[in-house]
């Protein structure tokens, strides 16, 4: 499959993402510049982490207006796959491709550490091959990751089974104690109603290489490869 990884000014996880896709998973990858107006045949678009436009105004608020985003939005509306990680997730909520918003962490700190995630379903390409009875160790690194949606929007997200990952304990237990940033419902990642656009705050690309002694993130990408 051909992946497209978008680089915005201030993206800093694009190289890691490309490395995992190209060198670890042996996939075809094209690096797209935010001013591009063509996805160059990429079937799966990834918006990587970082600080696009220095997080000016709000995280992702300016990146959503980059020329490439028109193509990404058209691709998603045609049913094409899009995954936003960390800042990429913020860009997707700002652009309206995903519901909700990502607010400042409730402790007002930038949090950089390993957390544990529990897949909330097996009904998306990214969670299909995952085990719902175990936890996955994936790092987070963000200052604005507190997922929030107003009550009616939240109800619709839950009713449509759009949560894909929740923060949990190492043993896979859910609870406020394991919520690093104050996210509603312990939400770490969601998808759209069409189940082709995904956003998550944790960084699976930082846990996908044997040299890092943690390959839990690789399992998410392998699930994508197996199911598309």
């Amino acid at each position, binding site marked *: 499959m051909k992946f497209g990884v978008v680089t915005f000014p201030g993206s800093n996880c694009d190289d890691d993402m490309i490395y995992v896709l190209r060198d670890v998973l042996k996939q075809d990858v094209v690096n797209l510049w935010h001013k591009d107006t063509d996805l160059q045949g990429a079937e799966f678009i990834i918006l990587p982490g970082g600080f696009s436009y220095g997080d000016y105004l709000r995280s992702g608020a300016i990146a959503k207006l980059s020329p490439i985003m028109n193509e990404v939005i058209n691709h998603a509306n045609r049913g094409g796959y899009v995954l936003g990680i960390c800042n990429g997730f913020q860009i997707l909520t700002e652009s309206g491709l995903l519901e909700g*918003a990502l607010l400042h*962490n409730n402790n*007002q700190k930038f949090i950089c550490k390993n957390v544990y995630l529990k897949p909330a379903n097996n009904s998306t390409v990214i969670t299909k091959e995952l085990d719902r009875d175990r936890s996955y160790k994936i790092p987070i690194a963000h200052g604005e990751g507190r997922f929030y949606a107003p009550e009616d*929007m939240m109800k619709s997200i839950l009713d449509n089974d759009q949560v894909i990952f929740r923060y949990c304990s190492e043993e896979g237990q859910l609870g406020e104690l394991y919520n690093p940033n104050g996210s509603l419902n312990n939400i770490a990642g969601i998808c759209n109603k069409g189940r082709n656009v995904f956003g998550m705050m944790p960084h699976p690309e930082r846990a996908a290489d044997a040299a890092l002694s943690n390959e839990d993130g690789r399992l998410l990408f392998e699930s994508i490869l197996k199911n598309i």
Partner: protein
Amino acid sequence: MKFKAEIDVMPLEALLDPQGKAVSNSMINIGLSEITNVRVGRHIRLFVEAASEEEAKERVETACKKLLANQIMESYSYNIEKIQ
């Protein structure tokens, strides 16, 4: 005609504002414990060319809705003043 808009973007009342809370707590350290409920937002000043105040208002509304504020988490208010 040229208009000046002074825009305030604030976190929605229903939401926890951790920045405001931290500032609130620091008031105690400067002996101002009577100051409470600080909320921190953003002030934006911009200039707009328009044929009328109505038109200027329309442009500012669009700017607020499409870029300056995210209405899921923020509210906005503004004043528009003719300067030329």
